[in-house]
């Protein structure tokens, strides 16, 4: 622990040196650990031995969202995020995921992109009024005979999902959905979320199909053959629950 401490009457004062554990009380530079000589600066790193090194007794750890410095390869995506140019942010992130030609659409609430990732259909949209990013991946159609069991299973899956996405119901279909405020979705978080939604959607779609004999959405040979012909109708239509619009979940 390189704390600068007085050597207890050694005569070296309070410079940035620390005593070693041996009996000769050899002193060391508190920055690099090299033995301190009679010079004014450390012979190894050049730190002035008269300037005390201020270290806190305990470091209070804070957790912050990643910055552009942490991900130099995403510098332009970070620039778009900082400038609140969210369509460009999404475009940059899709490029990083090697999705060169996503199917871009103008939706009523903002721009949208549809593409296949990890064999799952993924729909990304920006809700401009709510400053929100949404990632939807349609999973399956409800099997009418096993309605309650499927709904129950979806809620139980939510209790066991490690990722930030959630299963939700839209009309007669189950979707995996991730939504967050644009200002919270840094470029690496968006990329990780897209990968996470796609890989979980593939697994969960298969799990539900096998368990409930239901129809999987957006997969199969017809869709593989038209990988970029994804229809937003696959996602169904969002039903706004009026009772919730006054802020229950908003």
């Amino acid at each position, binding site marked *: 622990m390189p704390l600068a401490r007085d050597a207890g009457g050694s005569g070296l004062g309070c410079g940035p040196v620390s005593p070693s554990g041996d009996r000769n009380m050899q002193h060391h530079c508190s920055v690099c650990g090299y033995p301190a000589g009679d010079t004014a600066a450390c012979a190894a790193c050049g730190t002035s031995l008269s300037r005390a090194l201020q270290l806190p007794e305990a470091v209070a750890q804070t957790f912050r969202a990643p910055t552009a410095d942490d991900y130099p390869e995403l510098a332009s995506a970070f620039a778009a995020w900082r400038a609140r140019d969210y369509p460009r942010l999404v475009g940059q992130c899709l490029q990083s995921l090697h999705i060169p030609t996503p199917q871009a659409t103008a939706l009523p609430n903002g721009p949208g992109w549809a593409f296949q990732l990890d064999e799952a259909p993924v729909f990304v949209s920006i809700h401009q009024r709510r400053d929100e990013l949404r990632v939807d991946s349609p999973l399956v159609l409800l099997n009418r005979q096993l309605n309650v069991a499927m*709904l129950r299973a979806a809620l139980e899956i*939510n209790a066991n999902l490690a990722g930030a996405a959630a299963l939700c119901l839209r009309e007669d279909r189950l979707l995996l959905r991730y939504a967050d405020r644009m200002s919270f979705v840094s470029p690496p978080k968006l990329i990780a979320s897209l990968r996470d939604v796609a890989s979980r959607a593939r697994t969960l779609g298969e799990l539900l199909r096998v368990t409930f004999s239901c129809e999987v959405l957006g997969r199969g040979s017809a869709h593989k053959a038209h990988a970029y012909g994804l229809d937003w109708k696959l996602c169904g239509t969002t039903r706004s629950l009026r009772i919730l619009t006054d802020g229950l*979940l908003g």
Partner: protein
Amino acid sequence: MDYWDKITRSTVAVWARGGYGSGWVAAESGLVVTTHRVVGYDTNVAVAARGHTETAARVVYTDAKLDLAFVLPAQPLGLPPFPLADSRRVPQGTAVAAVGHPLGVDHTVSRGIIASPQHTIRGVDYLQTDARVNPGNSGGPLVDGQGQALGVNAWRPRGSNDLGLAVPVHAFLDALRQFAGAADLTSATPDHRCAICGTPLDLRSDRCPSCGALATYLEGRQRILQMPAIAHAESAAESLLSRLGVKPHVCRVGEGQWKITGQQYDVHLLVTASGRTLLVQVPAARLGPSDHEHAYRFLLTANDESTGTARIAVEGEVVRMELAEPLDFFDSEQVAESTKRMIRQALRLGQLLIRNFGAQPPPRDEDA
């Protein structure tokens, strides 16, 4: 009060940053005896007696050689101290009971006998018992048939099932008297003793100033050593709790688990097994006896309305809201904001479910 009540009443659970175990009240001042293995070199820990919520406690003394520690609760626990037995004169075959929280199960008692009154390992004399001592028992009392403490359950040799070792009371009686009678320990620096020679350690160094032995800061905390991700996740959770204005050590309820008890709600924080995700959960309601299909439809449709990463989930009969925050992108300020919003949402959702779907308020500890 019967014997079993008497011996479990003054036994407490102890939570430290990287460990969990048991302890027992040993003095009128409320001083709790536990093991060094449980508290490590922490300064602040939490203790809880049976049926009581957690209380912050300060570590005042540790002895790595005896694997012993004393902690002083910030608020008096109001529990009578265990009477101390004469552990020098305990005959072989004496019936004993080990009390503690093995594997997280509260206030468990296992019976046995003193198999050997003096079993010496590395210069320390232990009481050897065949009472079961499992992880979580460490720090609990070994009591005789009169309910007197004979020692503190310390450890079990690897691979043994019926061989528990307890540090006898007489080995730490002097230290106990010294700290039990001290005037004010609330702000004292913990007195840590060397594992080899018992000299007070200065934690700014990693060696004993007298014998030069290395201080083993992480001994007994193998889970953290094995999984650096867990330590990172614990720090992230503590950072979040601090942002929420809660003292992390006070609301710790286990390894990688914390619980905030509000007037109307509970908030649970859990680190997932991989250490990569932090779950923040707020129970909203308990499902009613019928009408589940409509309730499920409503809940899953509501999930389509949410902004932010909060989601609605069901486990058993409990409907809850939860955040699953990947720790790779963890921002404690953002998650604190999301958590506060989710608490409001969960309260509101609970009211809606109770009013419209025959649900009931969520179970809380006092209902259990």
